[in-house]
């Protein structure tokens, strides 16, 4: 190394320190509010209002959770089950539907294919709030307003999943494999379900996870469609309880504890399925 380098060393060290400090501050920004939620959920109400969060004296998470599930006759557990049903079933079915369509866009040729694909991409752009009123009117026409189906069917629709499915199909399913399956005399659908679907696994998990998050977050559609509290997902239920909190403050601590529990499934899903979506996200982003 020459002397020239050693004079550069100091600014470089300074640069390193700056980079690490900036990243550290950003991580604190994203992590601290989550930490606040955990701490607040483990405090009783008085400690919450004295914002005395760091005293570990009155640890009452268990009591808060008991209160949460006892509130309003155990409504929270109902909401939780509803959210799981909407999100897990909806995302699983939705991902299968979207990926099958994306695969077909990739592997088959037909007239006006790209125009049709353009329509799918256009659907990504349309705001949900634009569709809500007509969907509500259609649902009331058919008589499914305020039922499970009014929320479940619209959330299956995931045009972005088709876009991802097409990219994944290009990346993961070589045309030669499909040709080989055809040579072996496998029908087209058999080739899809037995051969291609297995290779599309990681992509399928990515689409599933995106959709799971979207449905778990969904708030507008249930709010429009549902009036029966027993059908609410957690998001809408917590919103309702939070509205009551301004009048009766005993709701504050259940809303906080309920929020903490509502975050857990998604964190769990992201951690458990990490191996899949990391790869999937990369494939989706590079294109």
């Amino acid at each position, binding site marked *: 190394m020459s002397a020239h380098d050693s004079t550069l060393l100091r600014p470089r060290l300074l640069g390193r320190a700056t980079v690490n400090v900036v990243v550290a501050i950003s991580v604190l920004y994203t992590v601290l509010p989550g930490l606040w939620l955990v701490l607040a959920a483990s405090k009783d109400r008085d400690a919450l209002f004295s914002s005395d969060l760091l005293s570990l004296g009155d640890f009452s998470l268990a009591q808060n959770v008991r209160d949460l599930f006892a509130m309003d006759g155990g409504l929270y557990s109902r909401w939780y089950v509803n959210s799981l049903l909407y999100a897990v079933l909806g995302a699983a079915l939705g991902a299968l539907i979207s990926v099958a369509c994306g*695969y077909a866009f990739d592997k088959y040729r037909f007239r006006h294919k790209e125009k049709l694909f353009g329509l799918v991409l256009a659907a*990504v752009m*349309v705001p949900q709030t634009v569709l809500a009123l007509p969907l509500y009117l259609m649902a009331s026409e058919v008589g499914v307003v305020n039922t499970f189906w009014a929320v479940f069917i619209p959330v299956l629709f995931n045009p972005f999943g088709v876009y991802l499915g097409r990219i994944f199909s290009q990346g993961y399913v070589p*045309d030669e494999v499909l040709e080989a399956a055809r040579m072996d005399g496998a029908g087209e659908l058999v080739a899809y379900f037995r051969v291609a679907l297995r290779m599309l696994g990681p992509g399928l998990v990515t689409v599933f996870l995106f959709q799971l998050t979207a449905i778990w977050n969904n*708030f*507008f559609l249930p709010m429009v469609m549902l009036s029966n509290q027993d059908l609410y997902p957690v998001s809408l239920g917590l919103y309702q309880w*939070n509205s009551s909190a301004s009048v009766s403050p005993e709701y504050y601590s259940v809303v906080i504890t309920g929020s903490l529990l509502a975050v857990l499934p998604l964190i769990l899903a992201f951690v458990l399925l990490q191996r899949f979506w990391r790869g999937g996200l990369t494939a989706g982003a590079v294109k």
Partner: protein
Amino acid sequence: MTATTQQPAPATAAPPTAPVAGLRARKAARRRRLAACGVLMTPFFALLVTVFLIPVGTAVYLSFFSDDQPGLGFGPERTVFVGLRSYAAVLTDPTFLGGLGTVTLYCLIYLPLMVGGALVLALLLDSGVVRLRAWAQLGLFLPHAVPGIIAALIWLYLYTPGISPIIDLFAKADITIDFLGVHTVVPSIVNIALWSNLGYNMVVFYAALQAVPREVIEASVVDGAGPVRTALQVKTPLVRASIVMVAIFTLIWALQLFTEPMLLNLSSPMISSRFSPSMYIYDAAFTRNNYSLAAAASVVLLLCTIALSYGVTRWTSRADAQEAR
């Protein structure tokens, strides 16, 4: 990624000695393929028609018609064509225009912060000098797993005097701050959205940066470019496609602004029930039961979204073309 090579005529197992039979077999194979393609696509397109095309059509239809009750409301209700009356009503309604203004302000603050912040973080993480990189990424990504309504709840409490440790901290330094005041409410909402999505977009950019060929970066270092110049003048242009994608999605989401203000509405007098266009639509449709007004507002919002996405795409592709020259 392997590129899809378009195969020539499908190689079916037809014997070459019988050209007619071969042609027929090929035709049959093609029919089978189209049938399979149809089966795979039908569920999605059935959804597309029922929960997308028909609703959009209905919204457009509703915006041109109105339920009028002739004879002082006693006669039978009938639907009449009102032309652009609903649009005129929406576009002259100061609350709707105010909502559009609010969302414009929101986008102007949010979009640069979001895209710039996520890109800078991704470039820093990609620079190779960050310690505990995997943990930092996980920490930054964490808020993405928090549902929007819960993110809004957490921040609402962090904005509420008496509960918030942040306000306490400021109070100790003798600064009183009202996060939900006249001038702070839009930045406060921007902060919630930024917190939720920063890490996700950072991961998207980071993935794109990882795909930049290492030789390109090495070449730029050999040419004497420092790390900052390499990041800004070599890496950033190479991930342009991702930047455009993130910008468009961020914009589309920002225009729909609903969840956060809807939640804060209960706690801040600064947020009316028609704070954003989406809240205006909700209010018109489900509080005032004025379907044609809500539909007209929906169509206006839709047109704004399409125009902006188109504009961003056009603008960036023109910039690309100029670069190529």
